[in-house]
């Protein structure tokens, strides 16, 4: 296998995913409308609830709208990760997954390519969202648009890996609603996306601890600091670790000899 083969495979997978995304205008719209509803409706209602304390990376008081921007960016990537998992289940049902997996290239490479493809799509969505937020008067340092990119790549890969791991265990498309309820909502609400963790700590220490170990919290904090041209090393470490764990488990899950599916099949 030469580098050319690898390149061609990566190119093919990413192009297919981006094309699929671009052809689904409704999906693009939905991906934007969801965080915008939160920003313009939910945040407006909670406007007065915050702005009473300064936490890093902020240097002064901020409005609630400004606070939840990184959380909503994380939300876009989280939904996108789940969407990718949905499309992988679909691919498997339709048989195109088999075509992909019988390629002579190593499976981890194929799966990582798939992840990169999903992440590229999520980053397109994030920038579209940030531009709209900017138009609505949210203040962000211009340099943040550049410095957030590496954070978006890492967080996008990590959340995509979660979706991939899930897709290796979901047998049918119909089960996706369950994923929504049991994965997306707790992940989103038990994080620092909507409220700073010190606020959570005031109401419940247990919830605070759950939030603190939630990888999604760290993805959001990584994005939050990156938007202000800073690195939150702790979140960077946790996000990278989570990526390694989830991706490793997903590669294992997609191995027909050892994966989660055959065992489940035997159990039935």
């Amino acid at each position, binding site marked *: 296998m030469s580098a050319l083969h690898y390149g061609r495979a990566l190119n093919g997978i990413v192009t297919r995913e981006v094309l699929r995304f671009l052809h689904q205008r409704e999906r693009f719209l939905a991906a934007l409308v969801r965080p915008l509803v939160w920003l313009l409706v939910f945040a407006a209602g909670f406007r007065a609830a915050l702005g009473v304390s300064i936490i890093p990376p902020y240097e*002064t008081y901020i409005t609630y709208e400004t606070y939840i921007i990184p959380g909503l960016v994380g939300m876009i990537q989280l939904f996108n990760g789940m969407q990718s998992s949905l499309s992988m289940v679909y691919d498997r049902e339709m048989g195109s997954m088999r075509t992909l997996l019988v390629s002579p290239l190593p499976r981890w490479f194929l799966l990582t390519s798939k992840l990169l493809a999903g992440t590229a799509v999520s980053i397109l969505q994030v920038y579209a969202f940030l531009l709209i937020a900017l138009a609505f008067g949210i203040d962000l340092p211009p340099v943040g648009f550049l410095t957030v990119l590496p954070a978006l790549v890492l967080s996008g890969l990590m959340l995509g890996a979660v979706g991939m791991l899930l897709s290796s265990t979901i047998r049918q498309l119909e089960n996706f609603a369950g994923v929504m309820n049991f994965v997306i909502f707790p992940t989103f609400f038990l994080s620092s996306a909507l409220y700073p963790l010190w606020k959570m700590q005031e109401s419940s220490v247990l919830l605070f601890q759950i939030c603190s170990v939630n990888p999604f919290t760290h993805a959001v904090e990584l994005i939050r600091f990156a938007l202000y041209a*800073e690195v939150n090393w702790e979140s960077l470490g946790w996000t990278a670790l989570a990526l390694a764990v989830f991706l490793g488990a997903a590669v294992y899950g997609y191995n027909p000899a050892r994966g989660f599916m055959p065992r489940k099949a035997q159990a039935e």
Partner: protein
Amino acid sequence: MAMRMLPAAIIVLALTTPAAGQTVFVSNEKDNSLSVIDAQTLKVTKTIKVGKRPRGITLNADGSLLYICASDDDTVQVMDTATGKILNNLPSGEDPEQFALHPDGSHLFIANEDSNVVTVVDVPARKVAYQIDVGVEPEGMAVSPDGTWAVNTSETTNMVHWIDTAKRVLVDNTLVDSRPRHAEFDKAGKKLWVSAEIGGTVSIIDTATHKVERTIQFNIKGIARDKIQPVGVKLSDDGRYAFVALGPANHVAVINAQTFEVEKYLLVGRRVWHLEFTPDQKRLFTSNGVSNDVSVIDIDTMTVIKSIPVGRYPWGIAIKG
């Protein structure tokens, strides 16, 4: 945990940073102290103990002396800004709160909140020159740039009192909205801006006629009307902007001084009362009494760039060039 990654942001900041050597003095009403802030690094460099309940502070023309209203000591302290030492006290009448220095530096006009008078102190002689009876609870003080008028606002009488400084008499009163807290002349001395804390307005008064020409109202999305309590007012020398501190609304209003339209509301700390420009007018500092900090507004970008913790109940601000 968090470290700066890209120096780019710092470079951008550094390009717009005012010249070095500007020093910000902030009086902490509850701590009986002054916080001294380096205007370039935006860090507190030292804290100086002063008299009880320091409120209004102002510098003399060359910035060598800082006058401090020590309200509960019933005196005005004079501090050497180079050493931070108190040189002497001036008589002030009871409970001095705000004051204004005559442009020639000879007289201090002091509002005595508890005794309904304005005390005028001869600064070189360190003696009370005269006193003028005004309305109930005098608070805001200003002297016109040409030195002919001294004005005082009385919080309970809701009036602006016009004192002719040459004749040393009160010659006229102008009724404004409820609880006037602060008065500020524009650079030409043609207009006087007066904030009304309970009324929630700022009135613009013509200096020649002593009549209110215009009243500005405020409206911030998501903040109750009664929380909008204007106090401090500052006008930029170029005549473009007026800034009004809105107290418990935690915002500073940016007003176009030509059209009198409110252009923007900037979020700062809690209960913002007083404002001061750096001498180059590139930055505006705000004292936030309840959150115990000072917010810094960058005028070019019209954004709040930082909030700096100081002592308890920061009140007055003076900035030395």
